């Protein structure tokens, strides 16, 4: 098992370097030459050169990339062109808000999806199954930022139950979490249903029933536990989409997370902030995916056995 973890960790390094390079290269194209906009119109060529060196923009793309990675390893993402603040500091200030939103989103999604998916599978081809699947299909087809606007309209403006935006207290996170969580819930409902249907046909469930295990226990202890494996996989893969989706939700609800930081920085063409936030977010996604894979290996004895030999 340790060898598996070590192997996965080693495989992470080239992917992370590649991600950083890709984002760095894209942002390099985007930047044009930011020195001129920072230096102002009446700067002399000497001043421009000096500023270029100070901003770390001298040298070829590869040279700058190597410098960037070197600084990144020291925890330095550079300084914002606009606010002149340390990008890492700003990112770490915003990150807890995004993680809070992501966690509640996952809870909302699982809370909706698992019961719906199980009901649909247990009562296959019934009205409950059809309703669950229609709801899931609508959830998958609805743009989450539009859902966010509808939620604001009804629950904030009409009923006054939740604030329209901001980050004051628990009430302000509920609507953003539902906004991001709905499409994830839709996907998880479909996966839960199909995974449960697979398991429900297995012989060991018939054996459990024949032994007199109650139907509730058959579903909860025998079926769901086995059906969980593909659900966990989807869950891990979707973490990336939750962070992506939160960019929109953070914009709609003025939630001060990483997503809004990126969107604002793009508006202001603040390249160090955009690059830093994207690189860090992607690293986070990659590490979470690795953790999910490890949990997956742990939950499924068959996978665990492959690596403990």
């Amino acid at each position, binding site marked *: 098992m340790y060898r598996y973890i070590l192997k996965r960790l080693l495989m992470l390094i080239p992917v992370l370097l590649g991600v950083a390079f890709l984002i760095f290269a894209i942002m390099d*194209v*985007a930047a044009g030459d930011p020195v001129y906009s920072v230096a102002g119109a009446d700067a002399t060529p000497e001043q421009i050169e000096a500023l270029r060196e100070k901003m770390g923009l001298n040298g070829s793309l590869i040279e700058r990339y190597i410098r960037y990675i070197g600084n990144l390893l020291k925890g330095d993402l550079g300084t914002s062109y606009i606010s002149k603040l340390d990008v890492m500091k700003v990112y770490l200030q915003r990150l807890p808000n995004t993680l809070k939103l992501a966690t509640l989103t996952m809870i909302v999604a699982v809370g909706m999806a698992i019961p719906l998916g199980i009901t649909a599978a247990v009562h296959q081809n019934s009205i409950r199954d059809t309703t669950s699947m229609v709801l899931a*299909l609508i959830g998958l087809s609805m743009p989450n*930022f*539009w859902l966010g*606007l509808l939620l604001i309209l009804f629950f904030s403006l009409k009923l006054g139950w939740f604030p329209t935006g901001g980050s004051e207290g628990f009430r302000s996170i509920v609507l953003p979490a539902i906004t991001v969580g709905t499409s994830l819930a839709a996907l998880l409902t479909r996966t839960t249903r199909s995974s449960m249907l697979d398991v429900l046909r297995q012989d060991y469930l018939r054996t459990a029933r024949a032994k007199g295990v109650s139907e509730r226990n058959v579903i909860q202890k025998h079926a769901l536990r086995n059906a969980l494996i593909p659900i966990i996989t989807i869950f891990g893969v979707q973490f*990336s989409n939750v962070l*992506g989706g939160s960019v929109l939700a953070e914009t709609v609800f003025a939630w001060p997370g990483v997503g809004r930081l990126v969107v604002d920085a793009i508006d202001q063409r603040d390249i160090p902030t955009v690059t830093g936030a994207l690189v860090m*977010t992607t690293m986070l*996604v990659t590490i979470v995916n690795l953790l999910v894979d490890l949990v997956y290996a742990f939950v499924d004895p068959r996978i665990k056995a492959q690596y403990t030999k």
Partner: protein
Amino acid sequence: MEINQTNRNQQRATKLYKKRSALEDVWRQLRRNKGAIIGLILIVVIILVAILSPILLDYDKDVIGQHIKQRLKPPSADHWFGTDELGRDIFSRVIYGARYSLAVGVVAVFVALAIGITLGAAAGYIGGKFENVVMRICDIFSSIPSVLMAIAVVSALGKSTFNLMLAVGIASTAPFIRVARAAVLVVHDEEYVEAARAIGMPDWKIIWVHILPNCLSQIIVQATLRVGSAIIAAAQLSFLGLGVPAPAPEWGSMLSAGRQYIRDYSYMTLFPGLAIMLTVLSLNMLGDGIRDALDPKLKR
């Protein structure tokens, strides 16, 4: 007499069997799926609307023309979906907007298909170091949340409809690389591929003629379902102000404009959002149906 009858039945059966092509089989399966048929009808209507909108509407007058006296009128017999903050008829804009959303969705998926299938099929066929490099690149692409990836690409290339298509396409490439590679690996060692190699057929031709047609079903399913997500991704970027530039009636940017008036004029956000949902819903229903028809094993 009885023998004759049996022969005739056999002949009829052979004739029927020969007549039905794979496409007909898929269509027969699809026809039985109510959801898929509803999806198909809806998407055909939306495509027709998109094609006919320049004939039905005058772009300069009905779609982008400002009529300040008519601003912020609620839905009525004259303006079915009401008017926006510049007095433009929202119904006309939603109708015309179908052109942008469908075009962006379809072209983005074609971009993703072209890059994804070429790289994925080559990786699966060639194998070795090349496959390793392609799959690591694929890992890199899938590690970046697709919305953030598309945002980065648009901000690098600049705001335009074409760049939006490119950005969404590039951000959706990774799944196609995976599907194509996996499909090629399945048929890579089949006898007919070896036979083609033995008669000296060039590799690109073997991939194109013998391998890809065998993975077509999975690619079609992925593509249909991806058009829907590409439409949502494009609307998201437009909502953030990174998509189709104003005053074009793109659904995402209409939602972004309507957001400021949501308190008093909620219809401005209602209809463009419904249009996106209906389009994506119909594509998802059709995509699910095609998947079930092409691969009954996946049907639940």
